[in-house]
């Protein structure tokens, strides 16, 4: 929650996306209890992240200030103000994974991809995000790449996994 990184990537939203967003926002505004958080969840599903332009549309539509929308967007760890990479690496740092060495896995991944946890590569291909417990502690330590799950990892496995995605 403490780390707020504004994106340097230019906004490339399409008209189609905006139309979709406005339709969703209309539904939310007409519900019994309109919720900014629900609006942000839907917006992130459409755009993949929450650029400030999108937050402004939400603020205008929901009749709240941009500050309030920004406040919610930066409070929750699932919301991202940066676009994720095409291949998003997530290393579980839950307790079970941590005691089995997932800290070393993050370090190795950072080394292999040449960037830090929380960053997206400049070509937009890769990003690293350490995550909280994924809930499959039996496989600890665990890493996810988009929807693929890699369990019972050792540091030695990382270069091969990274190479696999670099080749794609």
């Amino acid at each position: 929650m403490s780390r707020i990184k504004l994106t340097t990537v230019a906004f490339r939203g399409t008209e189609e996306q905006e139309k979709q967003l406005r339709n969703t926002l209309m539904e939310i505004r007409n519900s019994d209890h309109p919720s900014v958080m629900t609006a942000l969840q839907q917006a992130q599903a459409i755009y993949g992240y929450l650029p400030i332009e999108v937050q402004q549309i939400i603020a205008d539509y929901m009749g709240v200030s941009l500050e309030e929308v920004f406040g919610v967007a930066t409070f929750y760890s699932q919301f991202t103000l940066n676009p994720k990479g095409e291949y998003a690496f997530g290393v579980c740092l839950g307790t079970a994974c941590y005691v089995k060495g997932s800290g070393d896995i993050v370090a190795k991944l950072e080394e292999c991809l040449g960037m830090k946890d929380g960053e997206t590569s400049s070509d937009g291909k890769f990003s690293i995000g350490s995550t909280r417990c994924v809930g499959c502690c039996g496989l600890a330590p665990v890493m996810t790449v988009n929807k693929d799950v890699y369990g019972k990892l050792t540091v030695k496995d990382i270069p091969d996994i990274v190479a696999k995605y670099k080749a794609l």
Partner: protein
Amino acid sequence: MYRTHILVCGGTGCHSNNSGKIREAFEEQIKAKGLDKDVCVVGTGCFGLCAVGPIIIIYPEGAFYSCVTVDDVPEIIEEHIVKGRLVERLLYHEKALGNKAVHSLAETNFYKKQTRVALHNCGVINPERIDEYIARDGYQALIKCLTEYEPQQIIDIISASGLRGRGGAGFPTGRKWQFAKNQVNDTKYVCCNADEGDPGAFMDRSVLEGDPHAVLEAMTIAGYAIGSHQGYIYVRAEYPIAVERLKIAIAQSREYGLLGDDILGTGFSFDIELKLGSGAFVCGEETALMTSIEGHRGEPRPRPPFPAVKGLFGKPTILNNVETYANITQIILNGAEWFASMGTEKSKGTKIFALGGKITNTGLVEIPMGTTLREIIEDIGGGCPNGKKFKAAQTGGPSGGCIPAEHLDIPIDYDNLISIGSMMGSGGMIVMDEDNCMVDIAKFFLEFTVDESCGKCTPCRIGNRRLLEYLEKITTGKATMQDLDDMEQLCYYIKNNSLCGLGQTAPNPVLSTLRYFRDEYEAHIKERRCPAHVCKQLIQYKITDACKGCSACSRKCPVGAISGEIKKKFEIDQNKCIKCGQCIATCRFGAIIKE
């Protein structure tokens, strides 16, 4: 009628290990052999023994196959289904029984000591089919409540059962419902806390994924008992399978008239809506959770007023955790006396624990309250793997504490755990062995709470950050004994002054490790030494006389810190070494050690 049922675990651990593809392979190949009229393939919730997943159980034999892959499917069909012979090589082998193959689930040590109440349907039914739930007495409890009981009678039963909240604090559930019932208001809410944020706990996820209707049914009963017509389930967005199964379950029970207007023609109406979280640990706190359902930053607020008086959208609200709800239907069906006959004097029933960390049988276990930690860790869990020595068990997540070996024989209940400086929490149990540094573990939890502190109150926002800085000083060998005393005092200051449960319990991992492992803290400070060789600044890599001089390590070292002559002993330049550990991983002679 099918002659054989193949149960494929669809819990998160097995699912991540391709159990979905295994199920598809079974379905296709069974069909191709024309056996689909005799053999039924069922995707179920979690069986519990995640360590040896993917798990498959075949009834009527109850054969228990572990670590199955897609390639094993043809053999299982050919041998087991067609010829009726067990596939020995895939049967689970129990170490405690001299690595003998175990033929059925019930024979394993892992299951023998368990009592499954909240998990009674997990791994038994297909969670995506309401008919299977109904066949196991599903919705019988709701029918009984709506047709035979007055709301007050239901609350009396729950109170008499002695059920306490399974989310952590252990507040008596019946009393909570009574407070909400006593409020006079046309609009009341029933909420379910499915925002399982404690890293290392996954019991709620398994209940939602394996038996979603049990939660829906219990919430409807709660709605009838307190006079509410609307329920909300606040579920973690990180649990996509659970969300999907809940959606299916809600749609099915609406279709069957078990949810919605005029349930079963009794005139009682109740509906449930899903609200997705977005990842914030503090939202497990009840007032923060409700603020989050309303769509705002999930910050807690002072109590009173308690949610039972003024909760969601300012209306009387009850909030219970998933596991608590999972017990309700069983209490209604089997009676309060039955439930109260299990457990200890003040903690009744059973508790689910998620066993993880340095333990052989990682997975989900449900045991009667009063079972000892030793039984869980040694008998059910199979002890620490690789012959390592047990050091501590951590319960209660970032709010709890570490329990050392000397307390292994204490019977587990809410009050006993608090008396030894930990807490029940939601039920995560992480085992640590001699290779874990307790100061590092305390630091890990503090990093978590510092990151997850919502920032509303100063003791938690700033206090925990200062606390983390002390721990960083200790783990880098820069602290003094005075720092240790100051740190301890700061812990009590944060505990006593924070607004919500997050801050009030955040120092517990530090305090409990200080209580039982003060010697480790002192070794870091006085001797600048990490006894478990974890804290990087305090360890040195050294090459022993076992070195053959092959130069493999020096070629691998990323900073060129290792040098020497071929066929002679190499040396590490401590000033250059970054302690990455690559040399140890590279050396084939075990000639590099940490000290």
